[in-house]
Structures are given as C-alpha cells and as structure tokens.
C-alpha cells in the first residue's frame, strides 16, 4: 500500500460547497434582487414595532381616507394615507408583512414536513401504501387549488389559522411528489444499499441517508411555495375567509378597500403592490436557487 499519493501531488484545497453555490447563484441578477427584497421584508417584519409610525388598528377619526403625502391634501403623519376608518396604511402594511411572512413560513413548514414524510413513506413502503398516498395526492390535485382551499375553509370555518391549514393542504401534493421522486432516484444508488447492508433501520435510511440528498429540489419548491402560500392566503383573506378585520392582512385590506377604488386608489394600490413585490421576490429567489442547485442547468 505504498501507493498513497506522494505529498508533492497533494491537491490544492477545493472551494467549499457554499462558495460554489454562491458563485452560480450570484450570476443571476434577478435572484440576488429577490434575495435583497426578502431581506428587507424580513427586517421590516421583525422591527415592525419600531419602524411603524402608528398602531395598525388605531382609527384616526380626523382622517378618513387621507391621501398619501405627495398628493394634494396628504400629510407626513400618514405617509401612504389612511383607509376608510382612519387607520394608517403604511403601518398596516408593515405589520401585514409580519403576518404574511408568518403565514408563508407556517404553511411551508407544515406542508414541507408532512409532504416529505408522506413522500418518503411512499417511496420506501411502495406497493399499496405508495398507491394510497399518491392517489390521495392526485385527488387533491384534481381540484383548482383556490377552489379547494375555499371548500376546506368553508368546512372548518373562516379565520387565519384555518386558512393557513387549507393552503397547506392544497400545496401538499407538490412536496409529496417531489420528495417521493427524489427519494426513489436516491434509493437506486449504491450508497443506500451499502448503508442497508451495514444493518441500518428503515427509519435511519429514510431520514439520515436519503433525505439529506433530496434537499436541493425541496428547498427550491419551498421557496416557490412560500409565494404561493402568501398569494393564496391573501386571496382567502380577500374573499373574507382568511384573516378577519381588523387584522392587518394584505388580502383582507384589499377586500375592505374594494368599494373605494375610484375615490381613494391608495387604499387598494398599496396592499396590492406589497403582495406583488413579495411574491415576485420569492419567485425570483426560488428560480435562482433552482438554477444554482440543479446541476443539469450548470455549464
């Protein structure tokens, strides 16, 4: 065994995994922009108590539908104006960011964990279990997602928690199918067989051996699922099935503002704009992530 590599052949240190990832991620300008927006959003949400000029639910009776500062009649007190009951829109948006992130995070966390467990179970168990899980997912996929979410909320009763649950159920099949597919392709590889013949339990194989190698597509799906969750939750809020007034949820804000769209455009425009920007940020970030993590797209 004297063939051990001679010291003068020692290779230079390879760049770490993260450095390689960052290099290809940073090439995508949109993705970096999305990441920047996300960071801003997180900071705003975290520091809402400090930066919001007003309470999100306090009604200023002196200023119903006050216009934004740059428009005639606007004032620096209410930079983006007030809504029909005199609440400061900027403050509501800032607190709404917190809500949206919480919604996105919990929905993704819920459907990611459940979906991964279901997908891995289906992949490992095979046969009837696999068939059962995947057919249930197919049934969920048959319905238009928003329609299904509405049905679920209608059964459970309106409210923010139920809306989140409904959106989580609707996004479940994506995670389940993805984790099943990548687990199946990993299962066919030799290192899994090697670990198995070392006596590893199925549980260990699932979560210690296979799952860490399936994370790349799941991370991408999660970041894209984040924006879907925010969008769907806003839609439910808009339909009056999600967060209830006076919670400063963006979708709910839109719903309340609908009748003023001719008189006071700002009540409608700013929450819509906030939703648009957030969804865009997560989508750009998710796309960038996919490009950076998917070896097939590398050159």
């Amino acid at each position: 065994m004297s063939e051990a590599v001679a010291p003068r052949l020692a290779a230079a240190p390879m760049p770490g995994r993260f450095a390689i990832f960052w290099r290809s991620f940073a090439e995508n300008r949109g993705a970096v922009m999305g990441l920047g927006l996300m960071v801003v959003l997180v900071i705003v949400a975290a520091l809402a108590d400090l930066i919001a000029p007003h309470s999100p639910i306090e009604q200023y009776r002196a200023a119903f539908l006050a216009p934004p500062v740059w428009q005639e009649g606007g004032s620096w007190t209410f930079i983006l104006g007030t809504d029909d009951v005199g609440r400061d829109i900027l403050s509501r948006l800032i607190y709404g960011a917190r809500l949206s992130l919480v919604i996105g995070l919990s929905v993704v966390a819920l459907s990611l964990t459940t979906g991964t467990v279901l997908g891995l179970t289906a992949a490992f168990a095979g046969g009837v279990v696999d068939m059962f899980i995947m057919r249930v997912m197919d049934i969920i996929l048959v319905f238009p997602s928003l329609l299904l979410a509405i049905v679920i909320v209608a059964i459970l009763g309106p409210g923010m928690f139920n809306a989140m649950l409904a959106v989580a159920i609707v996004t479940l099949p994506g995670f389940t199918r993805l984790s099943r597919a990548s687990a199946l392709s990993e299962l066919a590889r030799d290192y899994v067989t090697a670990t198995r013949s070392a006596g590893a339990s199925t549980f260990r194989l699932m979560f210690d051996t296979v799952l860490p190698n399936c994370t790349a597509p799941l991370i991408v799906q999660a970041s894209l699922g984040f924006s879907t969750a925010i969008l769907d939750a806003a839609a439910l809020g808009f339909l009056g099935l999600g967060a209830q007034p006076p919670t400063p949820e963006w979708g709910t804000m839109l719903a309340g503002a609908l009748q003023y769209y001719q008189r006071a455009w700002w009540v409608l425009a700013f929450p819509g704009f906030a939703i648009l920007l957030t969804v865009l940020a997560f989508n750009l970030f998710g796309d960038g992530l996919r490009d950076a993590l998917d070896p097939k797209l590398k050159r």
Partner: protein
Amino acid sequence: MSTALMQATDLRRHYPVGGGLFGKKGLVKAVDGVSFTLREGETLAIVGESGCGKSTLARMATLLEPPTEGELAIDGHPTATASATARRDLRLSVQMVFQNPYGSLNPRKTVGAILQEPLAINNRGDGPAREAAARAMMRKVGLRDDQFTRYPHMFSGGQRQRIAIARALMLNPRVVVADEPVSALDVSIQAQVLNLMMDLQEEFRLAYLFISHDLSVVRHIARDVMVMYCGRPVEQGSKDTIFTDARHPYTRMLLAATPSVDPAHRKVTEVIKGELPSPLNPPPGCAFASRCPHSTDICTAERPALREVAGHGVACHHAEAIG
C-alpha cells in the same frame, strides 16, 4: 482445507414481470440454479456479460434479496431458517463493494462519517473508539489522515474505491462481494486497487465473491471461476483448468472476444455472433444454442446439466468433443 464461509446450493431468483392491465404475465429467471462454495482467503470470480444474472446473485449473496428457491449458508448457518437477529448478524458478515465509485458514497457525509457509520449503526464501541478504528482503516487502504474530514466529491475515482473498500471492512466481514470493483477505473488505478484488495485478503483472510466481465482481471485475482450465461452457470471450476482448457463454447467465445495485448492471441478465429436472447420466455434447451457454432438438435431440445469434464464443471452436451 480452510472452512467454507459461504455455500450456495441451487440458488434461484425469479421475477414476475409484465402483467399490468392488458399484458401477459411473464417470469424472468434472473438466476436459475447456481451452486458454489466460497472458502476463507479465497476468491471466486463470477464472469458474464450484462444480463447474465451476476448482479442478482450479488444481491442474494449479501442477503439483500431472498432466493426464490435454494439454500444459502453463511459460515455453516443456513440463512433461510435463521431467526431475525441471527440473520442480521449473518448479513453483517457479508459486505459489498460496488462498481461505480461515484454513486457508492453518500455525498453529504465526510469520509470519517462514512467509515464510522457501520459501527454507529450497530452500536459498536463509543465515539473515540469508532474514530480510531476509522482512522486506522483509512491508513490501511492508503489514504492520508488529513483526508478524514473531506467529502467524497474531493476524491478521484480510485481514492473513492479505496474508501468504499475501507467502509466494507469496518464491520470485520468474512466475505466481501465485489461487483465489478475496478471496471470503472483507469488501468493504472485499477492495478493499485487490485493490489490493495489482494493485500487486504491476505491480512484478514477474506473471501471474495468477485464479479467481473474482464477476464484478464479475473485471471489475475481469482482462484475459482464461474462463467454465467442467462442466469445459469455454464462452466465452473478452478481458474487454471478454465483458462487453459475451456470446454463450453460460450467461455471460448468470451476468451476469444477479450482483446489482448499478446500478439499470439490475434490468431484466434472463433466465430463471434449473435446477442443475448430475451430473458423473457427463454427457449427450451441450451440458452446459448442460437449463437453456438457446435449446436445440434439435442441442444435446442434438452437443457444440458453441469457435469464434470476436463477437471471442472461444464454445462454443454458436446463438452467432450470441444477443446
């Protein structure tokens, strides 16, 4: 005579295929009647082309798949009747080395973690003892100590194969099943890995079930050889008799087809024709008959049994006439 570590008696593995909604059900006999004895410190090579059943045989030998019929005994213990815990211990005494060094190591774990994993799974030793054992094994297979915390993607194919061999030996197995362990490697690296395997065999008295399609590698490393065709052994015996006095037309075709750097080999003019028949619904009689230059009526009618000719087993009706 050293002890028999693995004894296979008439192993068979059949897979039902097709069916579906409209299709006809079929039966693929991936392995159909294989017997062998593998002793301590010896190497039995399984030779054959793709689809001959050698990989299925490897999966049965590592107890990853039960045989449909037949009996496999490890160290004298029959595996079929063993209790669950005894089976588990038997399984641990057979470890595997794979063909593709790029797929056989978990890309998310360091070399150190990969080597310690078998010990951790089986609760052998404590943390420091496992690490010491892993480091010792690394040195044995010719890797440097500072490579302990590196990930598989930082290694070349040959180094990865060393890691895979080290991992297989962590549980002190008696038998190592090596499925084409050097065929993905370059010639110069292949020689390093073959030497390593032979060194380790001497040191640990390992028995190798060495699966390969490369006859020159087999000739170098093996003591006994089994040539398989369509799931059945067609010629089986000691390396010396098979390489010098092959009696089965398929073995002879393989020998003739293997390119050689020896100018004398270029004079061989064995007819090489045809391809492997479909494993589904194989013809009655000898599976090789359609490609065989010596084929007669009896070959398509009656399946030849493995019988003793020229000092080794041959499954051919015309074995005496050939050679």
